[in-house]
């Protein structure tokens, strides 16, 4: 069974059509990226998934329960942070968690302590939230969404406002949660790198329409060609040489850098060839398979 199933959902607010018929599904244990520019309808979709707003048409089912008709069962195993983590600033971190724990019937103090240590807030959990830094608030928000040990975790722009260190920590945490608890994670973002590094599947959304849903691991496994970028002071000589090699499918120039389409795993060979011919290598690196290009292609002219 799919953890989340969205079928032909439409939503208009006033006269504006925000969501124009989207469908997608999230499997168990999958990290699903929801990528699109600002204003594409990402947050609106998430609000519909967690029952904050009602779709005008279509259905959303979580673990087999329709959110419209069986809200309480549908949300029982969902944890979500919609936009920013919203917290009662006049309460302590602990009381914020307790407020939510009281809504569920089976969350003990031990469960609370566990999520607190998972997100690394044990030292400051008894402080008032107004004394927290943004990063701490993000972590407390994550703790809130993990409280009920959800089967589906929904994170809306989760690294907004985090420093680079925080982003790396956060990424590790997400991967750990998906692996250890077999939780499906639905992450919305406008940041390509973020999605690229943690997601198994990505859906591109723009102007309320899903342009494409693609598997990130699958793509690179299917083809046996990868892209490499080479920088050298002797560009002409290098291009001449590379064109003679039959492991190289394509050579092109872009901003004085050479872009190579080569067979997988053959970059070291090329380095040897270049050195043999006394071509100095300033830099050579593997380029991740074109999520960025794909994004720009699908979301034509959209602001990132």
């Amino acid at each position, binding site marked *: 069974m799919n953890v989340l199933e969205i079928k032909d959902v439409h939503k208009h*607010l006033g006269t504006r059509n925000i969501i124009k018929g989207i469908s997608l599904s999230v499997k168990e244990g999958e990290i699903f990226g929801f990528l699109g520019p600002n204003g594409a309808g990402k947050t609106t979709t998430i*609000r519909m998934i*967690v*029952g*904050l*707003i*009602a779709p005008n048409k279509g259905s959303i089912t979580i673990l087999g329960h329709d959110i419209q008709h069986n*809200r*309480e*069962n*549908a*949300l*029982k195993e*969902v944890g*979500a942070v*919609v*936009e920013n*983590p*919203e*917290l*009662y*600033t*006049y*309460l302590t971190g602990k*009381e914020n968690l307790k*407020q*939510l724990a*009281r*809504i*569920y019937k089976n969350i003990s103090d031990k469960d609370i302590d566990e999520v607190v240590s998972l997100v690394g807030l044990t030292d400051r959990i008894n402080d008032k939230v107004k004394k927290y830094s943004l990063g701490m608030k993000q972590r407390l928000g994550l703790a*809130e969404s993990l409280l009920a040990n959800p089967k589906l975790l929904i994170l809306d722009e989760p690294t907004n406002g985090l420093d680079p260190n925080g982003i790396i920590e956060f990424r590790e945490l997400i991967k750990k949660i998906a692996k250890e608890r077999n939780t499906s994670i639905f992450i919305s973002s406008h940041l390509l790198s973020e999605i690229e590094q943690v997601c198994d599947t990505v859906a591109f959304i723009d102007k309320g329409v899903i342009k494409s849903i693609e598997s990130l691991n699958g793509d690179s496994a299917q083809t046996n060609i990868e892209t490499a970028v080479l920088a050298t002071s002797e560009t002409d000589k290098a291009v001449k040489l590379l064109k003679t090699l039959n492991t190289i499918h394509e050579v092109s120039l872009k901003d004085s850098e050479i872009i190579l389409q080569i067979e997988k795993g053959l970059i070291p060979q090329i380095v040897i060839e270049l050195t043999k011919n006394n071509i100095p290598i300033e830099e050579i690196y593997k380029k991740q398979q074109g999520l960025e290009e794909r994004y720009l292609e699908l979301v034509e002219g959209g602001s990132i």
Partner: protein
Amino acid sequence: MLNLVKNELIKLHYKRKLLITVIVLFVVSILICAGTFALSKLATPKGQIKIYETNITNLENQKQNNKNLSEKDIHQIDKQIEDFKAQIETIKSNANNPNVLSWKDTVEAKTTKLEEQKAALDSFKDAGEIESINKELLINNYLLKNNIKPLGDFDFTSFSIVSIFFKLCSILLVCIIISIITADIISGECTPPTLKVLLSRPVARWKVLLSKFIAALVSSLIIIISIEVLLYLLGGLILGFQNMSYPMAVGTKFKESVIQISASNKSFVPIVGSTYIIPLWLYLLRTLSMQILFITASVSFFLLLSSLFKSSTLSMTLSIVLVIVLDIIKQLPFQIVRKISSFIFITYGNSLDLVGSKLSDYSLGSLNPLQIPIVGIIVLLCWSIGCYVIAHLVFTKKDILI
């Protein structure tokens, strides 16, 4: 559900709302106690003599300092001073010779006098006066029958303190206390939008609304009523407790008068014989029930305002402004305003006077004949239910876009 109510109470507690309201009410209560105590001191013979003596000194000063006074003026001042001196003498002699008459004889004498007055009145033209004499007669009879000593106009007791509290605080202060607790209970969760977190959890929205209503109602009731009980006890300790069987007149009904005084405003007269007597404890019990109903209606109304707006400042300001405006306009002398105000919950805020039908008493500045307890109960119930139902519809249906 109980857990949700607990959540709301914890939030109210940590927002310092409960503390603020308790402090405000407590300070006001203390001031009322002190004020009543001062009044009761003035009402003693000693206090009255002091007032007259001050008056005499003032007049004498004026006579000496003001050179422009005519002969006539001086004569009048002298006369006034003599009057005051005579009053002082009377008070002194009364105090020295304890009343020859027992209170029973006084009451009986009064009764006879009232009966005579009543007989002289025209039952058609003077229904109002007849009914107020009836009231006094009923009370006098009850006092005699149950052997309860009547209280004079200047005898202050625990009950007087409570009446003063109701007169001064029962509408504005009580409503403001309730609005501090209730008016931002939903809108306050829009900035920062914590409501989002609450409503994306596996709990029905109607339960969230109901828990907020219950939490606000319970805290308002506990705070207001416990302060009133405290005030009653404090008043009793300082001024003495009033006999719980003391007679109270209730139940006066009104009808349109046959004779109209002005063309624009209808006049109303009491229905002769509709008043009856209940003991004080029952009167207080009815007042308490009526006030619980009023508090429920107010909580319901402020909850509705809170569900309509996304800004807590707006919903809070609006609720306080509305209370003040409604409280003012109900006193305007227009027929249409009077009619409308009969259907507004604020009008029934003074539960103590409402129970005694005093709100509609023509002699108290001709308010509205509709303002009798039964109408009050119906209007307050309608507001409680109506506002809650609208809040429910708004809250359970709306898209949360904050």
